């Protein structure tokens, strides 16, 4: 028999206590960003794109910023990360961000008036989708979340098609099957959006593995919200990207909120999301997500690195969800009303606008003009889309299409079910 070990006596210890991340400032309280230290623009080095990933790990706790526009300073582009874009490109970026915002506002109101069931804005996060689409190549494959409509818009996808998707109408490219904003476009290398969080990130890695397997030169990019990083898919994306050194750009959009949960519920207080890359030996960058130039530069760096076969980079975009999570929630129930306005990193549109004006390449008048013009564009597009129908009043795709595309060929049991319905 085995001899039972003597059970030593142990010193009495204090009772344990369960730590629950406290909810942040509540509605009615004053927002508090005092914890937040804003590092200077141009403050961090830009490693060579073929550097060992460890050289990027100090950037996990950095905040790469290019636009030196804090507290009234005029919007200079400074430091090694300045992508040095020509004014034409900057204006294109500004315009795409403004169009994204105008489109969001229009569709948000369309939902309010019952023309569709649901909508999600990306207000305050436009720089991410737009700058990244411009820094990537048009045929690089995108695996976005529902908050990167800027990617599609910057790639020139017709907002008429987007509107028709949101209306699930007779011209909806997705035949009325998907919830609004869950776009898909193979022609624009934009993978079908999932309602399930996180799933697309490791799919991006798989696509990138396939591209490498084929000796292609296209890379993939995937996005995930900071809240969804807790899902297994995030872990899988990092693991597979590391093991197979996949040519992919992995983006965590840290907009501080996951519906009503602040980023600390996802572990954001314990470490940055960029730091998750360290344990996998992946490169990482942490960037001011409201700084168009910084997002562009970080994306370009990661894309060049991936395309040169040096593997994946995890980019944390530090930003702020200025609007509601979706049309289904009211943020004033869980955060101070003026928190968005007091967000220290400002508004991406205003900041790029300021920079262009500083360069003498833009003006308040031109900005107002452009704004008005884009509101018209969106209104006209909406009018046209409504001709093809809206969710509430139709027309929609015919009932029999409900049974199509479940499989490539319709199997007998589905044909029988369709007949049951008499269509």
């Amino acid at each position, binding site marked *: 028999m085995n001899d039972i070990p003597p059970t030593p006596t142990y010193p009495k210890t204090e009772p344990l206590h*369960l730590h*629950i*991340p*406290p*909810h942040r400032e*509540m509605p009615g309280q004053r927002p508090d960003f005092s914890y937040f230290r804003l590092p200077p623009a141009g403050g961090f080095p830009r490693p060579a794109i073929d550097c060992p990933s460890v050289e990027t790990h100090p950037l996990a706790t950095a905040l790469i910023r290019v636009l030196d526009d804090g507290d009234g300073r005029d919007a200079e582009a400074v430091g090694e990360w300045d992508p040095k874009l020509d004014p034409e490109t900057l204006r294109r970026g500004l315009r795409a961000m403004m169009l994204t915002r105008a489109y969001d506002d229009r569709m948000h109101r369309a939902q309010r008036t019952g023309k569709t*069931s*649901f909508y999600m804005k990306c207000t305050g996060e436009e720089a991410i989708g737009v700058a990244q689409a411009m820094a990537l190549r048009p045929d690089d494959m995108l695996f976005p979340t529902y908050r990167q409509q800027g990617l599609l818009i910057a790639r020139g996808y017709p907002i008429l098609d987007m509107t028709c998707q949101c209306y*699930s*109408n007779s011209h*909806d490219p997705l035949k*009325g*099957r*998907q*919830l609004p904003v*869950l776009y898909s476009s193979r022609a624009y290398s934009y993978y079908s959006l*999932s*309602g*399930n*969080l*996180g799933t697309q990130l490791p799919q991006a890695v798989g696509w990138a593995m396939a591209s490498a397997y084929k000796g292609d030169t296209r890379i993939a990019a995937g996005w995930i919200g900071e*809240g*969804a990083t*807790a*899902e*297994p898919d995030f872990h899988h994306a990092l693991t597979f990207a590391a093991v197979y050194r996949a040519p992919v750009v992995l983006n965590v959009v840290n907009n501080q909120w*996951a*519906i*009503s*949960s602040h980023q600390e*519920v*996802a*572990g954001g207080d314990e470490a940055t999301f960029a730091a998750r890359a360290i344990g996998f030996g992946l490169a990482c960058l942490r960037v001011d997500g409201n700084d168009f130039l910084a997002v562009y530069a970080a994306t370009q760096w990661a894309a060049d690195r991936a395309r040169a076969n040096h593997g994946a980079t995890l980019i944390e975009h530090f930003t702020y969800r200025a609007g509601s999570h979706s049309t*289904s*929630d009211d943020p004033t*129930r*869980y955060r101070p009303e003026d928190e968005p306005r007091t967000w220290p990193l400002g508004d991406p549109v205003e900041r790029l606008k300021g920079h262009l004006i500083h360069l003498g390449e833009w003006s308040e008048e031109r900005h107002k003009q452009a704004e008005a013009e884009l509101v018209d564009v969106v209104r006209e597009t909406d009018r046209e889309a409504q001709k093809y129908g809206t*969710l509430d009043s*139709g027309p*929609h*795709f015919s*009932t029999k*299409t*409900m*049974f199509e595309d*479940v499989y490539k060929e319709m199997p007998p*049991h*589905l044909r029988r*079910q*369709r007949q049951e*319905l008499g269509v």
Partner: protein
Amino acid sequence: MPTMSMVQALNSAMDVMLSRDPTVLIFGEDVGFYGGVFRVTEGLQKKHGDQRIFDAPIAEGGMLAAAVGMGAYGLRPIVEIQFADYIYPATDQLISEAARIRYRSAGEFAAPITVRAPCGGGIFGGQTHSQSVEAIFAHVCGLKTVMPSNPYDAKGLLISAVEDDDPVVFFEPKRLYNGPFDGHPDRPAVSWSGHKASEVPEGYYTVPLGQAAVVRPGSEVTVLAYGTMVHVALAAAEEASADAEVIDLRTLLPLDLDTIVASVKKTGRCVIAHEATRTCGYGAELAAQVQENCFYHLEAPIQRVTGFDTPYPHALEWAYFPGPQRVADGIRRALERQTP
């Protein structure tokens, strides 16, 4: 007696159990300060504190794993899955762990966990906010599966689930949260107030697991339904003006076979209605058991009226939904004599 919506009744069930039993705690996405996206936990954190009810990271599998560990310690966690469509990441912990732990430890360890998840369609949620996944879990030995159809049952069944020493998957038909729904989307939405099942005691009571309810007695045909489809079946019975006996299963596993068999032996005809996709849906199990136990009493084929074997579409929600007309047609088919 106060009248409660299903949301209020479920909230009350958790309030009662938090007050009665210090081992009960609740976590899930947005359930804490915010009170849940469907408001089912509203006010509970304010009243019971954030040690008892708190937000979880967005990781359904992690939540279930934590719940299994808490269960081993001796707690009775209630986990909210924000939508049943998002329960899949938790399947391994639910099936391989929670459902198996009592058996594999020869009874030494258990998982007294309640997993709440809003299910079903009717709110234009599209394919990822409308699914009914009960059949997957009813197939898993070691789990119990429940789906209430009204506020009174919802509270009584949820309390039974929380007190049960085995893991219970508790599906809440989201379309019924704030009012009954008979499957006529064109008619104005009605609230629970006025419905007799909205009379819900403030305090503790239970509706036992494993007992069905005959919600409409009849002699011509038996209609088996649960969740939203109970209300649709009642409407369909009227519209088919059939003397239909409608049975609300309430618990899918363990199943109240006796009530079902007694009814079908009486009526000789059976219609099964559910919102989930048909193939291998729970209706298949019901059909199998009814024909096994009532074969010599059946006068017509058992009819299944279900969601189609496609994802839940967005725009065509009402073409997909097995509404009163389709159920009524099923009743009529069940009432037909053989046509040679």
